[in-house]
């Protein structure tokens, strides 16, 4: 995008992000047709998993990037500009549990609750902010499994439709926040490439 390197997330935000780049006049044909290649120098695009986007942008290996607000909440220590709420990829960060209020009952009887999540910082902050003692269990794979096996009392996870939760006998008991795709920028690029970055921000806002 006119002299900028853009970090593009593969996964759920990939399609929406490529559509956005199309409207900005970037040729994404090669990116769409090649799902093994990672670096597309001609288009100024690097592709990666969403949680790596803040890393590449913070270090200036990409000038700007697109990632979910869930990733930014979890990595709130990253030194990047959050420029625009892009609106797509809308999900909810929620606390979910099985039937019979296992979270409330653990808190009443044991004074603490066990929570599995891929977002340990978000989960810890949410329970601390609401004055509840929580033991956070970080898992990498399907979080829904953890309460089913008795590992934990509930989970903190991102959900779009709630279907996966439902299919595993879980339901949303609290909403932590709504997450959408965000445009972020490296702080030095934000100054040294101000005109280029402002141009895409304006085009996104007016589109």
């Amino acid at each position, binding site marked *: 995008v006119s002299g900028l390197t853009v970090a593009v997330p593969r996964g759920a935000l990939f399609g929406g992000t490529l559509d956005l780049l199309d409207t900005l006049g970037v040729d994404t044909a090669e990116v769409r047709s090649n799902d093994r290649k990672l670096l597309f120098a001609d288009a100024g695009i690097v592709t990666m998993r969403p949680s790596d986007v803040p890393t590449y942008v913070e270090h200036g290996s990409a000038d700007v990037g697109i990632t979910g607000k869930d990733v930014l909440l979890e990595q709130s*220590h990253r030194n990047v500009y*959050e420029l625009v709420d892009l609106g797509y990829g809308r999900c909810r960060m929620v606390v979910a549990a099985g039937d019979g209020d296992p979270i409330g009952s653990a808190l009443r009887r044991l004074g603490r609750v066990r929570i599995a999540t891929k977002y340990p910082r978000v989960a810890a902050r949410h329970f601390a902010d609401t004055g509840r003692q929580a033991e956070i269990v970080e898992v990498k794979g399907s979080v829904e499994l953890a309460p089913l096996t008795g590992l934990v009392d509930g989970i903190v996870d991102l959900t779009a439709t709630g279907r996966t939760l439902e299919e595993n006998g879980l339901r949303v008991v609290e909403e932590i926040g709504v997450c959408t795709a965000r445009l972020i920028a490296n*702080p030095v690029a*934000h100054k*040294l490439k101000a005109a280029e970055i402002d141009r895409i921000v304006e085009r996104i806002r007016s589109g």
Partner: protein
Amino acid sequence: MSGKHRSDAGQPASSRTAIPPGTRDVLPEEMRELREISSRMRETFEEAGYGEVHTPALEYEEVLRRGEEHAAGARYRTFDEQGEVLALRSDMTIPIARVVGTRYADTEPPLRFCYFAHAWRAVERGVGEPREFLQGGLELIGADGAEGDAEVVALTIEALDAAGLRRHRIGIGDGSLYRTLLHDLDVPEDRHMPLLECLSRRDLVGLERVVSDLPARELLVELPALRGGPEVLDRAEGLQALHTALERRGVEDRVIYDLGLVRELGYYTGAVFEVYDPAVGFALGGGGRYDELLGRFGRALPACGVALDLQRVHLAQAAEEALA
């Protein structure tokens, strides 16, 4: 010399040979290059009349707190034989303010000092940021306003030229601009903190949300996004005199005015700076005007300074060398 790398993983603490995360050993090849960079910068500073000073790494915590209520982020404390709390300095600005108030109590200003010294901060994020870092910087004490600011900015550019950088720029903002705007627009006091927090977190999406019900919301969002050449100064009259002074010194094309620039330390009162090079994704350093700090050490003099992280300057210099 063998090429062995020994790790302590799995060793009991008693037999460890590791160093704390965020600290480092510097070996001869790097040391030579760091020395080269710092001696070139030192020459530039000395020629401009900035004498080098050195102060103790350990200060009374109370003294650091007098400079800034959070002791400028000093995190490492210990006790001496009398039970006094000592702290490792987290920058050189407060110690130099103390030196001016005590050792230069009667000297006619302006005073000019430079330093090359280590400082220590907490490693809060645990991602390899330095706990101990080498700073090179300067302090200009007793020179007021735009002329003083321009001298510091121009000398910073010149010192980095001497160190071998070519594409560096200084971002300049006005540390009091946004606060003044909030007062001018009659934004209720209790709304200031969340606004300023979004700004210092660089969260412009959050900023937009917290101002959404305020009458002047557009201005509050647009102003901190303004950055560029002198054209943005219509909105920051406080920086116009600085621009004129920079023009006189012929360095106006090496600066970027940035109306959203905020620096974390509490003692800045006017212009604030950040130093950038396109080869490095982080600011190389920063500084600004701190007209109230010296008064806390008994000499109420205006002052301005800048501090550069020499390891980052080295990164930028190595990248320039690779390009040449």
